[in-house]
């Protein structure tokens, strides 16, 4: 066992091994967090740029020329093709780089080992590799923002033939190539991260941590990783085929196309095929983004309501249900592609079933809050905000899931409003809630509460002000991704509403700088955190303030109970951490829990998967 000995003697690692090419899950989580925040700033800024054009058509943007250069045309307006690039990159960055890598990467990496009670991820090396593949993919995507022909501009869904033909538009040239390369590397990163998360949860739970005692965060991260593991490879295949169509002259997605009156030689392919492959990833991707946020919310709402989560098993079952259904509803993104209407009705049926587990989750959150001793921390506010977005965005999902209604609503601002509420803003709130809640564990300091409240209210109200009016614009039929509202007589009346939306967007965006300041200031100057600031039950709060490599200085604590023993009748305190055995709490034990005392010796005796081989 040569490699076990390596763990036993600890040497101080050099700087670049400790902070840059680190194998420690906590450092990697922070790397993901900072990268995610960096990308979020860029992604949000891009949206402000196109909101300027939408709210104030033909606005003079000469003052942006120092940054955007040739993308501001001679008359001082935003270049229409660059508008498309902005929309595309906003979507790509937000979906993949912020809410997939930033959210899962940060919290799965940080919380899985800490909450299941492991020294580190199953493979620290692959974990490190996962981050650096993500980093390379980020570099390529970032670089593509600055090339002369502009970044990819065919929408984040990159449908061919637009994306397959470099001559179709300037953004389909080098920008598209870089997009595909970047995403291929991104998928490798996701794969390496995903197999690590799943394996860690299965193999490295501490003694006593059965699946029925796992915090809901871990269940969410586990299911997210499984979704990614199965859906991302399909995007990889789709992207590789697209690369061949672009560069090698094949016709997988191309058939009978005329450009400028000239017939292309490609025959035999099908652009609809790409849509099927893309949405087989694309739909689960929605849940890859949302499930971690829901897991984080479950944890924060239970902790801050000082009540057990309502329906722990129902929560797990509904997450499994959502994860399963995620794979068999993809064609609801394609109702109007000329699909057989009968097939459409099947996908409609399956889609509407998702409302059931989603409603179970929403009601469970509300019933957990019901008559709780609610502590309104900023994290709690963001979690409640998430539930609000999840419900209001989810309701429009039921409307959009109808294949008949979709004829009117598809590709309009109604869709934009729907998914920004239900997965965009909701998941972003999950990320923010997580940062506020686990900041003391990340950095050993507290964030400023007052700034957190101000940040919350501006963001929460702002997001509703941005997306609520979009429902009306969408029902009126205005298509998304259009450069200008004013070119069409029918939509001129929405000019005022659009100006309002843009102003709200600018306000929401500006409020994020409060968060940034609070975040960076608190890292260095924040109040020193107590060991368990939120009086939480999960294992991460049993580690030292600054957990070192291996998380716990001595043995890993065993686990005897679930994570939600809050306000238990008869208990001395209003929370009982997972590592407190039933034998120590006779005053609050239920009859079946008294029976579990007999098991404690057995639980303590198991310690065969401590990665450091600590004696027990």
């Amino acid at each position, binding site marked *: 066992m040569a490699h076990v000995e390596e763990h036993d003697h600890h040497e101080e690692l050099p700087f670049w091994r400790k902070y840059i090419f680190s194998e420690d899950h906590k450092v990697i989580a922070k790397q993901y967090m900072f990268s995610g925040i960096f990308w979020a700033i860029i992604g949000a800024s891009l949206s402000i740029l196109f909101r300027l054009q939408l709210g104030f058509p033909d606005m003079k943007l000469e003052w942006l020329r120092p940054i955007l250069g040739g993308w501001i045309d001679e008359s001082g307006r935003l270049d229409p093709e660059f508008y498309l690039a902005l929309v595309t990159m906003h979507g790509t960055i937000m979906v993949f780089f912020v809410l997939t890598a930033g959210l899962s990467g940060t919290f799965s990496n940080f919380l899985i080992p800490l909450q299941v009670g492991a020294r580190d991820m199953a493979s620290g090396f692959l974990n490190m590799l996962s981050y650096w593949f993500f980093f390379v993919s980020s570099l390529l995507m970032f670089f593509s923002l600055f090339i002369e022909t502009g970044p990819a501009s065919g929408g984040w869904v990159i449908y061919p033939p637009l994306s397959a033909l470099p001559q179709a538009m300037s953004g389909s040239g080098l920008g598209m190539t870089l997009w595909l390369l970047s995403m291929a590397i991104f998928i490798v990163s996701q794969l390496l991260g995903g197999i690590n998360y799943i394996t860690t949860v*299965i193999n490295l739970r501490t003694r006593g941590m059965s699946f029925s005692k796992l915090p809901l965060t871990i269940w969410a991260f586990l299911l997210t990783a499984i979704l990614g593991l199965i859906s991302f490879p399909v995007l990889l295949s789709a992207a590789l085929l697209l690369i061949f169509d672009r560069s090698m002259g094949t016709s997988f997605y191309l058939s009978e196309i005329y450009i400028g009156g000239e017939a292309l030689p490609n025959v035999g392919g099908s652009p609809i095929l790409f849509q099927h492959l893309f949405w087989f990833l694309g739909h689960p991707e929605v849940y890859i983004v949302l499930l971690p946020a829901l897991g984080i919310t479950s944890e924060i709402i239970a902790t801050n309501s000082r009540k057990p989560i309502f329906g722990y098993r129902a929560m797990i079952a509904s997450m499994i249900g959502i994860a399963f259904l995620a794979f068999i509803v993809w064609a609801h993104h394609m109702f109007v592609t000329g699909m057989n209407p009968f097939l459409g009705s099947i996908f409609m049926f399956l889609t509407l079933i998702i409302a059931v587990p989603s409603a179970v989750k929403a009601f469970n959150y509300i019933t957990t809050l019901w008559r709780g001793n609610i502590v309104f921390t900023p994290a709690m506010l963001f979690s409640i905000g998430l539930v609000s977005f999840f419900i209001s965005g989810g309701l429009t999902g039921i409307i959009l899931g109808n294949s008949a209604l979709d004829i009117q609503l598809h590709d309009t601002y109604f869709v934009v409003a729907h998914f920004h509420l239900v997965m965009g803003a909701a998941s972003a709130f999950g990320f923010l809630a997580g940062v506020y809640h686990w900041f003391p564990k990340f950095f050993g300091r507290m964030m400023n509460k007052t700034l957190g409240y101000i940040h919350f209210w501006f963001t929460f109200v702002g997001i509703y002000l941005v997306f609520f009016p979009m429902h009306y614009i969408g029902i009126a039929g205005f298509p998304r991704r259009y450069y200008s509202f004013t070119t069409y007589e029918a939509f001129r009346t929405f000019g005022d509403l659009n100006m309002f939306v843009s102003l709200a967007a600018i306000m929401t965006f500006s409020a994020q700088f409060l968060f940034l300041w609070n975040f960076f200031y608190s890292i260095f100057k924040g109040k020193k955190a107590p060991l368990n600031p939120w009086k939480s039950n999960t294992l991460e709060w049993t580690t030292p303030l600054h957990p070192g490599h291996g998380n716990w200085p001595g043995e890993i604590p065993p686990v005897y109970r679930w994570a939600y023993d809050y306000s238990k009748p008869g208990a001395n305190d209003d929370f009982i951490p997972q590592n407190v055995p039933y034998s120590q709490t006779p005053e609050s034990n239920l009859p079946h829990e008294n029976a579990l005392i007999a098991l404690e010796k057995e639980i303590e005796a198991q310690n065969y998967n401590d990665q450091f081989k600590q004696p027990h």
Partner: protein
Amino acid sequence: MSATATTEAPVFDKKTWMGGVEPMKVSYGKLMMWFFLISDTFTFSALLVTYGLIRFSFQAYDPAIHGEFHFSNLYWPIPERVYEAVPFLHGIQLPLVFVGIMTFILIFSSVTMVLAVEAGHRMDKAAVEKYMLWTILGGLTFLGSQAWEWTHFIHGTDEGSVIREIVNGQWVERTIFGANLTENQYGPPAFADLFFFITGFHGTHVLSGVVLNILIFYRTSFGLYQRRGHYEMVEKVGLYWHFVDLVWVFVFTFFYLV
């Protein structure tokens, strides 16, 4: 951690999912390999679904409509008529003989892989080396055969095929030999596109498998696994190798049999 550490541990009957042990008695590395293979299954599934969708968007050959079979870009070719060449037997029609031999070699290399894994369990270094060598040889032979088959596919038959196409508004006839990513003597260009892409993608997997096998052989022969006390690495790479073989069975079925 290691497989040996867990198998020596006292067995916690029925409580193996209680935490503190590897519940399925599988080390993290092997578990990761399984999850990777699940992921890769979906990569190949996507490609084979692509094949199915494009293949069935073309007409099938029907003697009642098309008369006697000849290569034509109007319908999907019959695979037995496309793959009927064997090295050194020029001009003799031997449908699917060569690819049958290739398939046999690849599946046989799976057998030798199993024997290597089994020898690893017995800690028999010499036997592991021997069977790893046979497996590597099988993999290389398969790759070599594939290279020959591709070459033949690219160069085409002696006669070639006459295709009709519109150039500058005029119908012109032209004889083409073999196939590439834009032209195909055997049938629609999509047939060749898919053939090159999917067998190429599989071949890349075989190639990486051979590289991994060579690495394992090298480390075995330097006694690394003997010192480590177990040959689990052989098992993990073995899983990958069997997976690549299994995928070939599907690729073979899709391209050559259906």
